[in-house]
């Protein structure tokens, strides 16, 4: 496109006005974005402030102002000693449930997704249809029958009873089948084969390094999903010492409303803070892996 001298002059004149309006637009844009950020950050800010207050301060001091003397130390002590220190177990349990589920889930989904992407075998279409079909079945609809089946198998109220159903991660398989198709070139797999490597060795030595970003994504999605899960462990677990954080804190919450209950608001608030702290600290580093997992499903068809 050619720009004539007159046009050029006109655009230079416009540019001065544009600079002013550009600054105004930037200000307006930033103002809107800041409002959105405030919506997200206000409750988190409140959680930090409130977790430093005593029970009476929670009801008497201004909601969003920190107390003169933060009581984190004594609140921490109360949090980890209340009810024989159940909270410490919940924290440990959440780590166990999440890390074991994520490790097994990422492994199983990667194997299956790679198998679907790189091999042709009888039944491949059926397996793929099962995976995609089960994406539509809401997992919560399976909780009641799952409870009864696990009851027959003696799995309720056990760690494996919570972990194994969550290892089944149809989205993970779907994700990995798309990821592996692009990430592992066929001629690389072929040359490994010609060099005499077995299929599993090819996957381990050639596939694994190429698939690693996808595996990390699956691990994180599964870890966060399990850490945040409530419905499934609520139904499957009965013993307080096996609860994850979500179920434990909701049990404390319901004990508040019972008659003659102890006012354990500081414990619940600090407990909530401790439950989100590890992920909030790690999130800036993990964000891009997590985002890739969410977006790949949505963008695959475009």
């Amino acid at each position, binding site marked *: 496109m050619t720009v004539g001298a007159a046009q050029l002059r006109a655009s230079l004149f416009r540019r001065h006005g544009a600079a002013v309006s550009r600054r105004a637009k930037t200000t307006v844009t930033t103002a809107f974005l800041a409002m959105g950020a405030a919506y997200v950050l206000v409750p988190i800010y409140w959680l930090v402030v409130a977790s430093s207050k005593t029970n009476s301060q929670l009801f008497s001091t201004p909601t969003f102002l920190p107390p003169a003397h933060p009581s984190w130390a004594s609140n921490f002590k109360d949090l980890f000693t209340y009810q024989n220190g159940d909270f410490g177990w919940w924290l440990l349990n959440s780590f166990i449930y999440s890390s074991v589920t994520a490790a097994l889930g990422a492994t199983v989904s990667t194997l299956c997704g790679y198998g679907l992407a790189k091999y042709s075998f009888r039944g491949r279409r059926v397996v793929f249809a099962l995976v995609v079909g089960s994406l539509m079945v809401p997992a919560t609809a399976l909780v009641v029958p799952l409870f009864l089946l696990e009851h027959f198998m003696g799995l309720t109220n056990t760690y494996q009873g919570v972990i194994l159903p969550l290892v089944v991660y149809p989205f993970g398989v779907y994700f990995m089948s798309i990821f592996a198709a692009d990430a592992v070139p066929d001629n690389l797999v072929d040359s490994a084969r010609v060099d005499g490597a077995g299929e599993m060795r090819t*996957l381990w030595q050639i596939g694994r390094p190429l698939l690693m970003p996808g595996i990390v994504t699956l691990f994180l999605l599964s870890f966060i999903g399990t850490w945040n899960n409530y419905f499934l462990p609520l139904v499957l677990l009965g013993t307080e010492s096996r609860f994850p954080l979500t179920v434990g804190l909701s049990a404390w919450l319901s004990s508040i409303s019972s008659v003659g209950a102890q006012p354990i608001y500081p414990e619940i608030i600090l407990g909530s803070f401790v439950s989100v702290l590890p992920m909030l600290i790690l999130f800036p580093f993990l964000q891009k892996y997590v985002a890739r997992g969410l977006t790949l499903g949505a*963008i695959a068809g475009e």
Partner: protein
Amino acid sequence: MAVQVGSASASSPVRVMVPSRGTTPRQPPLRAAQGRSGLLMTGPFLALFAVFFAGPFVYSIVLSLRSPLTGAYSGLFNYRTVMSNGEFWSGVVRMGYFGVVQVTVMICLAIGLALLLDSPYCRAKKLFALIYFLPYAVPGVIAAIMWGFLLEPDLDGALGVPHQLGLASGPVQPLDYRLALYAIMLIVTWEWTGYNMTILLTSLTNVPHQVIEAAKVDGASELSIAARIKLPMVRRTVMFTIMLSIIGTLQLFNEPVILNEIATTGSALTPNQIIYNTAFAFGNEELAAAQSVVLAGITIVATIAFFGIVRRRMGPFGATRAAAK
């Protein structure tokens, strides 16, 4: 998208160096062995899937056909009970209303924020994108506890301000049974707007540069670029986020349960709460199974109907396209 083994390799250097295989790209025995390895790799998933997914799925159907009293086969008895169960259907209708209001607000917010972040007027894009995405790392239970306490007048003095100014007869009670649904909307919007925004933003980043540059050369304003170029190009992703949100709405459980603990909002608001109560408060697992099957059916029909509409209007996308390959 999935490329079949050996299909493109006849010309690869390795193949050329091996004369016996260079002539025929695929050798049946090797292919069969490779196929077996593929099947073996899906084995662990399929085994666990059978026990912990397909098993409960089939069992819920079997259970739903049994009598709650005798355990004997009772045909569609439980389904007739579900059909005439006013509480269950008002829960479903309530979620329909929730979906129309909350999903609309949330998706509009997510689109707006994503377009702002993608515009040339945005500063500190990475920081904002991170902040919006943070709630994804917060469990629904904890989000509900935070907001529940913030919406509770005893704990949040700000809710008493209208009363002190003489504008209300008492402190604002957002967790009152009449307003609880809107409190849940506020919490769910807080939790999921950034998630949807993240999906949309990635999709916006994939819009070809040349198209936008061409529009700029033609003198299009940023606003019209956003409305006429960017938005139409990510419309499939928008549809995808709407669909995910509808599915999520039908499954709501954590937030209403937690708010009920804080403020005793009373009755079960969502279908999943009703199913939980049917099974574990009233011990009627057969009826709960039937309710689960109906809810899953509603979800699947809604998903397929949505895919159908989108597909007819925009062509295949996402999971449907992958399924067809």
